[in-house]
């Protein structure tokens, strides 16, 4: 009898800003666009609220991928928050890649409140990329 | 002349951009370059058209135009360009594409007139040969 390997289902934590990306996720729902169920959303007021400590913590606790999503540059509800996000998370992303973490593990995307389809598409592509990478072992707590 | 997708995507445009260091897509065709060019009257492709042709991949037409040998690199055009395009550099890149081909030289010492040979300042001769021959 052939052994059926259970398909690896990654856990993806998505931090979404309340005004654009969380609204985009809602729109995907209202439009009934189905996407990978591996994604779990944490609502934050603005992408600039996302502390790198939250991201690392998610990886430690077993997230296989982390996504931060915010308004497009120039559209921030708080005027400039995502500009700071862009600088901070660019630095963070390039650093953890330099430490040998696969670039797909941590992603940042701009998704507006009207981009429900884009939200679904991004979730699917992130889920697929992480699925191919396999589980996160590098940043995960061993205990 | 015909604009086709192949031409618009042609590598030659990218080469011109690379050699010149200029982005031809920056031009919005205001024509201020051509209007101020002191030698424009004898040009077959006007300076703003050089950029238009390049934007659309009509590089072949540019490589065969007289304009390349008429531009004096006086930089009047780029000093007034609202889009910061250094047109003489674009023309220079095109000229180089021609000159680098075998037999591409435009000026040979034998072509010089007697008057030029006798009276012209070195500055002019060096300049001319650097522009017109490789």
């Amino acid at each position, binding site marked *: 009898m052939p052994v059926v390997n259970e398909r690896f289902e990654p856990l993806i934590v998505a931090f979404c800003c309340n005004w654009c990306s969380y*609204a985009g996720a809602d729109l995907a729902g209202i439009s009934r666009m189905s996407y990978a169920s591996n994604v779990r959303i944490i*609502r934050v007021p603005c992408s600039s609220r996302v502390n790198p400590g939250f991201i690392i913590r998610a990886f430690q606790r077993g997230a296989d991928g982390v996504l931060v999503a915010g308004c497009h540059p120039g559209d921030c509800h708080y005027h400039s928050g995502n500009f700071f996000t862009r600088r901070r998370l660019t630095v963070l992303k390039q650093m953890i890649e330099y430490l040998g973490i696969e670039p797909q593990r941590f992603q940042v995307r701009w998704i507006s409140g009207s981009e429900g389809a884009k939200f679904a598409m991004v979730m699917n592509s992130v889920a697929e990329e992480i699925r191919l990478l396999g589980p996160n072992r590098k940043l995960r707590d061993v205990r | 002349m015909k604009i086709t997708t192949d031409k618009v995507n042609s590598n030659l445009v990218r080469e011109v951009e690379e050699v010149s260091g200029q982005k031809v897509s920056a031009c919005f065709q205001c*024509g201020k370059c051509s209007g101020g060019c002191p030698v424009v009257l004898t040009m077959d492709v006007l300076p703003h058209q050089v950029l238009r042709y390049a934007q659309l991949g009509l590089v072949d037409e540019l490589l065969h135009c007289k304009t390349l040998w008429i531009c004096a690199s006086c930089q009047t055009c780029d000093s007034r360009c609202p889009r910061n395009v250094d047109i003489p550099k674009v023309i220079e890149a095109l000229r180089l594409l021609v000159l680098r081909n075998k037999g591409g030289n435009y000026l040979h010492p034998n072509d010089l007139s007697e008057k030029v040979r006798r009276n012209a300042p070195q500055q002019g001769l060096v300049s001319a040969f650097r522009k017109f021959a490789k």
Partner: protein
Amino acid sequence: MKRIGVFICWCGSNIAGTVDIDKVAAAAGTMNGVVYVDQNKYTCSEIGQAMIKDAIKEYKLDRVVIAACSPRMHENTFRKTVESAGLNPYYLEIANIREQCSWVHKDKEAGTAKAISLIRTAVAKAAMNEALFAVEMPITRRALVIGGGIAGIQAALDIADTGFEVDLVEREPSLGGRMAQLDKTFPTLDCSACILTPKMVDVAQHEKIRLFTYAEVEKVEGYLGNFTVTIRHRARSVDLQKCTGCGECLAKCPAKVASEFEEGLVQRRAIYTPFPQAVPNKPAIDRAHCRFFTTGKCKVCQKVCPADAIDYEMEDRLLTNGYGAIVVATGFDTHKLNDYGEYAYGKHPDVLTSLEFERLLNASGPTGGKILRPSDGKAPKTVAFIQCVGSRDKAKGNSYCAKICCMYTAKHAILLSEKVPGSKAFVFYIDVRTAGKDYEEFYTRAYEECGASYIKGNVSKVFPEGEKLLVRGVDVLSGALVELLVDMVVLAVSVDARADAKELAKKLAVTVNEHKFFTEAHPKLRPVDTQTAGIFLAGVCQGPKDIPETVAQASAAAVKVAAIFSKQSLLSNPTVAEVEQKLCSGDMSCMAVCPYGAISEQVVEERRGREMVTRKIARVNVALCQGCGACTVACRPGAINLKGFTNQQILAEVDAICL
């Protein structure tokens, strides 16, 4: 230990169709702190809400988690529900198991697992939720309008008409601004003064408006509902109470200086009213040019004044008032032409800016409304209009489009054809932009009926050739060179932000963009607000616009102000940043990233050993903070936290969501 109640909504079959509610409920019952789980077909219904209230009382719940639709949908509804049951509204947490779960996942097993995960996360967060309270803030129901052009005039009138008090501050001796300088207005060609002057008079006579001309904003403090503004009333040297506006002094003053209002085409006196319809129609002394103030001798105006209104001793006065809201309407400067030597402006008298040309058109202008060449007083037969001078030019001028030039140049071409029979206008353009009601038709009229020749091509250089001007350019459509010998050249100068816009922005704690135009809070949805609550924008100070747009924005700003003033009091947003004193190092990294200027330094006293010492830490003004949380990440030790989204809460969510 918290006592958490979880309420799971079916949303009919919207949720129950893809999520096994019983399984979810069973799982929720095992979560930390959960003492009660219930489910309902429609939790948002009155029955559903009543069930929650009853459960809170019966089971002494102190935190509530509702698993239902998006919090963007019913968060406020449910907050009211828990509040009416005696709990703080911020004890509520919502798990979004509809938009972000049942509606997007078809597989029931996966949907159920995800719903459980989302509820666990909400429970973890709810356990850390704390009571949050909005602070009630009183409102000073008086508005300040900065700038007395058409934008400021309209905003002031509209606010005053709703019954609230308005102070209008204008830097010049008279109201009017740029619109007062214009002759006709596009696309209707009605006379600018005819429609503006009545509004200026209305401002002066409105019982709810106090008009301060020759005055400037010196200092702004405070926040929405409670600004304190110091206004510098510059010494006018003329007592407005006594002056009758008879004009005796204007004729006798011996000192002459180029008239700003007439764009330097003629001279005014040192004691002057900028233009005949000025409001107030009473003069001011320009001390920089007054003979008495520069040499100590003269006093002619005082001698001729029949009302004894001249007061050389007058000093600037600083007066401070409270305001609840501010409208900024400071207008624009025209672009300086220092970098455009190729157009021979200043080299040849018949090269004019568009605003100078406007004055030539105006009946009260230097030529009485006749178009005449400054050089020889003759009517020009051919006029070249050059567009985009200083606009769309990132090399030497403004990279942006000034928006109004295409239309006013069409107007100039039309008026030229009317005022100088047999004349010809050549308009050199890069693109003609006529987006506006009846605008395209107006432009069509210029070239179809009034004979203007439009040439697509930016003029490269204007060569003075004796009395005439040789205009050299190219028609990019035909590739033909253009060399025109014309009698006059008119340069459509670009619109700049006010040179001192940045200083004012600093006083107001609002921002300007790279071109020094004031930045709106949101480019699409909040174009009238600044990111500082209670400060609104009207007119060109926010970006180039024409008169109808300016008036519309001014009225919009007025409604925004009235909306604030119509409230009993203001409630602050409870989810604001908060500083923990013992953690704060006082490096103020938070202040640098705050878009609202809500963070400032404060001195605190602390016990160290046996003595009391002082040090500086950050302080959040809850009236200004909008709760973005950018500061919390800038703060390395985590001393500044965001209520409702604290580090503790989000880490708890992360931990729970990964279980």
